[in-house]
């Protein structure tokens, strides 16, 4: 398969074709089966995190270093010229001269798209506020593909903050490509925005709304838990995400034996630690897959 992603940007799942998504998954699987060490030799990656991150930043940096590349960047906007009033456009134009690829996380929606507009180097969106987090969605899909016999026709429950969770917004666009059945479990105040329900309707994807995990636990193959995005939602919205959206280990007795629980992490109260040792828990494997997917993205964008 030729490299359909060379020198392009990864900003939103909606930009990717099914062929490009397949290429990313296949490349990640190959890198996981047979790790490579020098695919990014002589390449410099700018890791520009204007907002805090642990897993995403470190997995991009680990992916780069393990492939023989080098990292420059920052993990806090306070240490950049943004504090002096520099525009994002100017910052990105300058960083483009210093690196071969830019990974950006930013607290403003659309920041990664703007960065890609002004940069002559490939840009990867590592999360732009409540909008998109494409590399997380791709690693989620990669993990689902690994732990289930097929992607087509799976029953997937998305639980928690479906309004502000950027992971959810990216993942929904990805899952729609595989004719899955979606169970949306969220309080009304944090339900999936209308534009995504329109999107699912247009794609002919079956979905339904639910108020508690117990309603759907017997039916699903993947239980995708999310935390409340406290940094983005109002105090009133925070109150609505009560215990109905916390996983009670007792209800797992009703689950399919093949059920896997995923979570983009960090978790807060949604999954008690007692679930970690059950055969259903798969979120740490999911987080580990972040390195392979990010290695795949870096390799595909930077090498022909």
């Amino acid at each position, binding site marked *: 398969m030729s490299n359909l992603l060379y020198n392009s940007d990864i900003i*939103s799942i*909606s930009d990717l074709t099914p062929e490009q998504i397949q290429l990313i998954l296949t490349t990640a699987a190959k890198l996981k089966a047979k790790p490579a060490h020098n695919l990014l030799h002589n390449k410099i990656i700018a890791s520009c995190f204007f907002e805090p991150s642990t897993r995403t930043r470190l997995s991009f940096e680990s992916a780069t270093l393990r492939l023989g590349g080098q990292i420059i960047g920052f993990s806090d906007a306070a240490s950049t010229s943004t504090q002096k009033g520099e*525009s*994002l*456009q100017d910052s990105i134009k300058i960083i483009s001269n210093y690196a071969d690829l830019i990974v950006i996380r*930013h*607290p*403003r*929606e*659309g*920041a990664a*798209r*703007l960065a890609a*507009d002004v940069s002559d180097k490939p840009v990867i969106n590592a999360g*732009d*506020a*409540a*909008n*998109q987090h494409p590399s997380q969605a791709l690693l989620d899909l990669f993990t689902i593909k690994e732990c289930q016999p097929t992607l087509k026709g799976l029953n997937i429950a998305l639980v928690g903050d479906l309004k502000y969770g950027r992971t959810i917004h990216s993942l929904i666009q990805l899952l729609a490509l595989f004719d899955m059945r979606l169970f949306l479990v969220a309080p009304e105040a944090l339900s999936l*925005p*209308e*534009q995504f329900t*329109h999107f699912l309707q247009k794609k002919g994807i079956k979905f339904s709304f639910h108020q508690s995990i117990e309603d759907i636990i017997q039916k699903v193959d993947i239980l995708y838990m999310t935390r409340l995005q406290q940094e983005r939602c109002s105090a009133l919205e925070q109150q609505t995400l009560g215990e109905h959206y916390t996983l009670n280990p007792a209800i797992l007795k009703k689950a399919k034996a093949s059920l896997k629980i995923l979570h983009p992490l960090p978790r807060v109260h949604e999954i008690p630690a007692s679930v970690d040792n059950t055969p259903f828990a798969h979120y740490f494997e999911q987080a580990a897959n972040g390195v392979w997917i990010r290695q795949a993205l870096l390799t595909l964008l930077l090498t022909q």
Partner: protein
Amino acid sequence: MAKTLSVSAIKNGTVIDHIPAGQALKILRLLNIITHKNRATLGLNLSSKSLGLKDLIKIENRSLTDNEANEITVFAPKATINLIENFEIAKKITTRLPESISGVFNCPNPTCITTIEAIKTHFYLEEYSKQIKLTCKYCEKQFDRDQLV
């Protein structure tokens, strides 16, 4: 009884009719009439069989392009746009909703990057359940036309 025109005829230019009442001023802004300096005549809240009340714009000595005419459909989906030459209709422009529109609306999402950076906004358009929906190129949020200014 002799029929009189509420808005006088023009010799050359463009007539935009069947504009929903209240939208004409937005279209004048869209077409940048003040910069172009062409004389324009405006009819507001005229009676209309199909719309109840309608607005009407006549712009002298300016023929709208197809792109300009298409952008008008964002405000007036059923507008009729005719190019006039020597008091006669020289061309009826068939309009369609444009795929996108730039630099006309502000993004109402307060956390969109366009609210703090000096960039031209850009929205993708689609019609859904007879409603025009606009999606911001940057924050990817979708809005009804009436939400945008």
